């Protein structure tokens, strides 16, 4: 028996705004009357490290998406997409921002960052649908690179059982007023990118 309507795993690097996406999903779900569960990373693990957020829409059980159980993997950074790809179902969808953020292990020369195709092609080999694009560039075009997470949210909006107007209402609740227009544009370009 299916125990969750839609499981989303959102990954990235501390500071990219992973939690904001989950917050918007959760607020929209509550408005929609859909049960929702989320789990996030705080504390020591946050400082420049890999960040993972689980969001389960239409679920009344634990907040943790099981390995191999996610319907959508939303990755704000390409290497983090591959790092957490084991969460995705074989028929699942991976939405990947292709703009790398180099970890300190790479900047200090202790490790190498692989070329992009070595990250994306194993994803394409295994999963149902992979949409990879430079969301950071799209956010810059929309007005601010900071809104990269909202570009990704716009892309995600096509794959989840939540109405767009509720997502946009929630966006308006969590984003400062002066940045709202840029964020709305970011949402729209993200959605168009995967259309």
């Amino acid at each position, binding site marked *: *028996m*299916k*125990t969750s309507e839609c499981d989303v795993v959102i990954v990235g*690097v*501390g500071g990219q705004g992973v939690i904001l996406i*989950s*917050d918007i999903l*959760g*607020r929209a*779900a*509550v408005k929609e009357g859909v*049960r*929702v*569960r*989320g*789990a*996030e*990373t*705080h*504390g*020591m*693990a*946050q*400082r*420049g*490290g*890999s960040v993972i957020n689980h969001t389960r829409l239409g679920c009344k*059980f*634990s*907040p*943790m998406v*099981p*390995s*191999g*159980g996610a319907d959508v993997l939303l990755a704000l950074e390409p*290497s*983090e997409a*591959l*790092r957490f*790809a*084991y969460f995705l179902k*074989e028929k699942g969808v991976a939405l990947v921002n292709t703009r790398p953020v*180099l*970890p*300190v*292990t*790479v*900047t*200090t*020369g202790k*490790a*190498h*960052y*692989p070329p992009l195709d*070595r*990250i994306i092609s*194993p994803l394409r080999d*295994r999963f149902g649908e992979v949409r990879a694009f430079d969301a950071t560039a799209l956010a810059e075009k929309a007005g601010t690179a900071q809104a990269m997470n909202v570009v990704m949210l716009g892309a995600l909006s096509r794959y989840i059982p939540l109405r767009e107007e509720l997502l946009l209402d929630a966006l308006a609740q969590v984003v400062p007023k002066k940045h709202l227009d840029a964020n709305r544009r970011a949402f729209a370009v993200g959605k168009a990118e995967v259309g």
Partner: protein
Amino acid sequence: MKEYLLGNAAIAKGIKDAGSGLVSGYPGTPSSEIIETLVGLGGIKHIEWSVNEKVALEVAIGASWAGTRSTATMKHVGLNVAADPFMTLAYLGVGGGLVLISADDPFCHSSQNEQDTRRYAQFAQVPLLDPADPQEAKDMVMYGFDLSEKFNVPVILRPTTRVSHARSDVNVDPTSSTSEGQASFGRNPARRVSLPVHVRPLHRELLEKQAAMEEVLASTPWNRLDLKGDHGVIASGLSALYAEEAILSLGLDLSFLKIGTFPAPSKMIAAMLRHVKKILVVEEMEPVLQEQVEMIARKVNPGVEVLGKGDYISRVGELDLLPVKEAIARMEGISPETRPTLDAEKILPPRPPSLCPGCSHRATYYAMHKAFGKNAVYPSDIGCYTMAVNMGTVDTCLCMGASITIASGIRLGGVEEPICCSLGDSTFIHSGLTGLLNAAYNNARITVTVLDNSTTAMTGHQPHPGTGLTATGEASVPVSLEDIAKALGAGFVEVVNPYDIKATIDVFKKAKEYQGLSVVISRQLCVIKALKAGVRRKPLSVNENCTGCKLCVEFGCPAIEFEGDKAKINNLCIGCGVCASICKNNALDVVK
């Protein structure tokens, strides 16, 4: 009405709705957001960040004994610090209801161990509520005050990381709260003075109320028995959600008992054990529930097969749906699903958490190592700076404040090499003061470095007595760490700015030569705090003098990269300028 709430925010709402007049705590992941949320909500008579967990609990006890409902919050290891008042409080009892929140961290996401607070509840013989999700956490904390007053005992709420840092749709409709009376302390030595003659009967009284507490707890909505097939699962707290989801997704007809309270409801457990032939106990960390199930089984159905810790459920780390599903499938003889493996991820560079670009701890440790050398011993402590373990200046980390005492023991045990220990400002105030006094008193010739970034950074920048601000942002007495160090007996006390590398190295060299107890306070505001406060410094850039020697790259600042055969400063640079002092070729300039 429902809101999408963080577990800790839901707990905060519960505390407020229950009319808790005083809330005290010390920050610690995953508990810190409870007090932070309450500060934002307002309406509590007194909220404080205490200097440590023992102090927090004692302040809460004082309020409780004066009739005010009170709450103390901490992480699991904080209860070790507060264990002394806690154990005897169980005998003496409460006035106004007292709820102690001890947040466990299975898998040590941000902790030095994964101890199980349920063991403390057993140890002290006090009730414990084990929430599965934010809604239960909110409802339980409110119930906890009533229970505490009914049985005259403190009550523990024990959320885990996946409850405190989970979010879910939570019903936030205001509920009837107890009206607050005027606080007053009523003299009652037999219950408030722990003389032997008083506590002997109180110990007996505590034991005698156990059965009644269990009986009352059994009838709460957080325990639920569903008798079906002759195989069953018993699970507690969050594990019950994993178990229920596993049973449903496997489509099995299993009997199920969800436990949310401790002491666990033995009559419900006995009813389950009489009904089944085989049972799996699912719980994170210690086999607290399983031991109780096994004891009851010996009395009511010795033939029942009890599965759990050891073969089926791990005692280490945290659970999630898959291991629980696998354990249940194995009990039922169903072959496990094959898990997807993805070897491609092996090509990825590790991304461990690290000190921020421009973090002053990195500069302090660099200067410390330059002055003390590689043969020195470097005991350290708990805070962001523990992440500098690869800089060669973090040789030990045991518990809050232990850097100073471990350093003392290493010296007094006979080690002759230079010893320089380090701890943060908040950690120093939490439990470094007694160790420093002890080092002075017992002539431990060590150097103590206070990494003073003027905040409790790791847990989210809470204030402490050195900052001159309280939890609610009111002005307070800013205590001077240097005056404390002098008063506790340190003969050498110097304050340095770690961004001035050369001066810092000089002070460390003097401290190293000093024939006694020396204290170096390395003071520079946390970069995250500084950015939030609007401090802007000009970033640096690499000029043509760069020879590609990598000295700056090895410093490990995330703002310094190596591209081609030269160093490069990326856009993370906050302009601390330390790399320019490290460079031997004058190859780093401030951007004009």
